[in-house]
């Protein structure tokens, strides 16, 4: 594996990444020099390199002729890079299911059938081109100390009610994604918006509580841990779980009304130079072995529950019996990517939040 990026990518970091890719190319060329004929598999991914290290290592172990070049992006930049067709990429991985769906809808994906395709849940695959390989509930986090003597809101309307009833406690201390910056955040928000009227109440109450928005889950988690924030809304469950395991100060839970479940997805562009290696990589991700490798990552939860159980982890505790709403891959995801729709939604959100970006 070639580590193309060592640091988290951010908006505007594209130049840095390009440089890193060049470096990676030099590195991998050096690697080719003393190895036999190798295929270099280029993966563009909006998932932390650290989360994928073990998976890639195990893949390379079973496919000695393939060297993986892993390039990390954030979701929006990744979408732009692929949609512009300016890069030759073998596998595209992203947590932003809607953007992935849009890329596939535009006809850029290559169709193939993994050996265990039938074992995959229907919502996590589309057209034989786009495959989800993780199972990540969207959870709420809170500062344990802050909520030591107060009840946690169990539904979204309770949350909105609590914020309304105790504005002083929550003011400036609720955190969530900046949906302008985070593709996943936008996905969660639009999914929420489709689930019902409560979301507009929640957004409104966030605005009233001067909620703060961030680009990434970890930013929120850090602040909740420090007590800077007391409540984090719509955090990716897998990351959260990894942090919560290490940090006593943070708690997480699922709301009673519903819990979104998202899946990181992978597809192979039609233009992929190494389709065979790409197919074997995605097949590996979906195979029991690959799922088991995913289970070893503290930041990821495999799609197949068997893999979670086999790994010895208990998945995300507290999900049993909850109304889980997996986000379906398909054309429905395209709705909020409509230019006008998105403009209107972001405008509504901004209006509700009355955000001052200075919080960044």
């Amino acid at each position, binding site marked *: 594996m070639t580590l193309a990026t060592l640091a988290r990518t951010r908006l505007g970091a594209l130049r840095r990444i390009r440089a890193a890719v060049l470096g990676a190319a030099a590195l991998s060329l050096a690697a080719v020099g003393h190895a036999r004929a190798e295929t270099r598999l280029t993966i563009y991914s909006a998932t932390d390199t650290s989360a994928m290290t073990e998976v890639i290592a195990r893949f390379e172990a079973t496919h000695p002729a393939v060297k993986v070049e892993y390039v990390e992006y954030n979701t929006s930049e990744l979408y732009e890079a692929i949609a512009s067709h300016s890069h030759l990429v073998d596998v595209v991985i992203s947590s932003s299911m809607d953007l992935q769906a849009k890329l596939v*809808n535009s006809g850029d994906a290559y169709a193939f059938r993994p050996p265990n395709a039938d074992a995959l849940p229907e919502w996590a695959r589309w057209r034989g081109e786009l495959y989800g390989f993780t199972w990540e509930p969207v959870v709420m986090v809170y500062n344990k100390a802050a909520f030591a003597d107060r009840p946690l809101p169990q539904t979204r309307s309770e949350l909105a009610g609590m914020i309304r009833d105790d504005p002083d406690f929550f003011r400036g201390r609720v955190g969530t994604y900046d949906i302008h910056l985070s593709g996943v955040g936008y996905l969660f928000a639009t999914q929420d918006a*489709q689930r019902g009227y409560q979301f507009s109440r929640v957004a409104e109450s966030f605005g009233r509580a001067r909620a703060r928005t961030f680009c990434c889950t970890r930013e929120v988690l850090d602040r909740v841990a420090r007590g800077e924030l007391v409540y984090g809304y719509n955090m990716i469950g897998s990351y959260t779980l990894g942090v919560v395991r290490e940090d006593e100060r943070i708690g997480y839970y699922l709301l009673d009304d519903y819990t979104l479940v998202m899946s990181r997805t992978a597809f192979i562009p039609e233009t992929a130079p190494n389709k065979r290696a790409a197919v074997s990589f995605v097949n590996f991700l979906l195979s029991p072995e690959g799922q088991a490798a995913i289970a070893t990552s503290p930041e990821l939860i495999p799609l197949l529950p068997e893999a979670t159980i086999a790994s010895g982890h208990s998945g995300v505790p507290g999900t049993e019996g909850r109304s889980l709403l997996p986000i379906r891959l398909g054309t429905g995801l*395209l709705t909020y990517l409509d230019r006008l*729709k998105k403009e209107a939604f972001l405008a509504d959100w901004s209006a509700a939040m009355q955000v001052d970006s200075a919080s960044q």
Partner: protein
Amino acid sequence: MTLPPPLPEARAVPYSLRRRLTVGMVAGFLALLVVLSIGLWTYARNAANQTYDLLLAGSAIAILERISPTPDGLIVDIPSSALEIVGLAKEDRVFYRVFRLSGRTLTGEPDLPLPPGGVRAGDQPRFFDAPYSRETSRFVLQGKLIIEPTGPDWIMLQLGHTRLARDTMQMDLFSKGLAGLVAIAVLGLVFMRLGINRAMAPLAGIEADIRGREPSDMTPLDAKPPREVEGLIGAINDFMGRLVTSKEHAQSFIADVAHQMRTSLAALQGQLQLAAEQDEPERMRQRLERASEQATRTIRLTNQLLSHAMVTHRGIDEPVEKIDLMPLIRTSVEEFLRHPETEGIDIAVLHDDLPAGSALLVADPVALREALRNLLDNAARHGPKDIRIDIGLSRTRIDEREALCISLDDSGPGIPAAEREKVLERFYSLNRAGGGSGIGLSIVNAVARSHGGRLALADSRLGGLRVELDLPVDGPA
């Protein structure tokens, strides 16, 4: 002359009625299948289109409903339900575009293909296929009239998806329909085969009947044949009847011939024995003379019998040649006059109403020549040395059919009216002593019959016999 051996391939492999019917029916069914398949294919396509066009139409309505003017401008709020409805065609990619009639894209893919004939204002959905994004896609185009502050304008929605689900449904409908058709065709063929076998069963019974017979058993088949082969059975029975008749004729002919030959040869032998017993040379010579005469008669009898057999035999084969009677008469006369005994005979050929080259008819020239030769011989043999013979050629009719009449008048003794019927029979001769074998006229009669003509005897204006041989111009009926 020896006949060449029959060619082995002359006997073609017999064809199978069953196979012919089967091949015909299979071909028919296949043709029908092809026609029905084309129809089915079109039907399946229309059905799939109609089904999925409903999805497009529903989604289009849902989207158009959410296009509305506000004081701040136009709102296009694509409902998520709309794309999800189209997404019911699960594997298909979805494209849309909202644009003004002027062409300005408000949202969606700006490069969607327009329908053939261009965009027209109107709120009725228009469906069409067009290639987009490397696939053929199905689109609906529908407009909505929006009253804006600047005035009314048509906002058009174009919504489409790839044809995967449609093609799958079409293929599914088609293959299921086709399976049914093929099943019906196969069943039909099976029933037809059974039907043929059933229909053929009586034929097998008739075959068994014929095979099981003694060679001499010529009784008619008593099978109850189906109507279609009734004619065949009738023909077989007729044929057997004719075989019986022909066999009887042959038997009586052989008996007659045997009798005639034996008699003639016995006479010859008698004369020779008498001659051998004669001591006196002069009387012996006389005996031998008579033996020689008897031998001549025997030869003539033999020739006549063979000629008769030949004519009868040839009569079975249809004469198909169109021949001119004049050259035939001419060669017959030439041949006749080559015999020295004919020196005193006065022959004339009268064909005034038939110019040269117009005495044409379909006939067997060999048989006709035999007939003419016999008529001439008869006249010469029974008449005086200076007999006059007029050969006449004229047009006549046989039962409305055009015919030619060859007549022969002679100045000989003639045949009494009472005897005329009999001389047409075999071996009836008025003049045995004169070498009459009694077979000459019966040969002519056989020729007349085999040509569908007739032979008549009458008194001649020359004082002797008039023979009229009428032959139809276009051959036997």
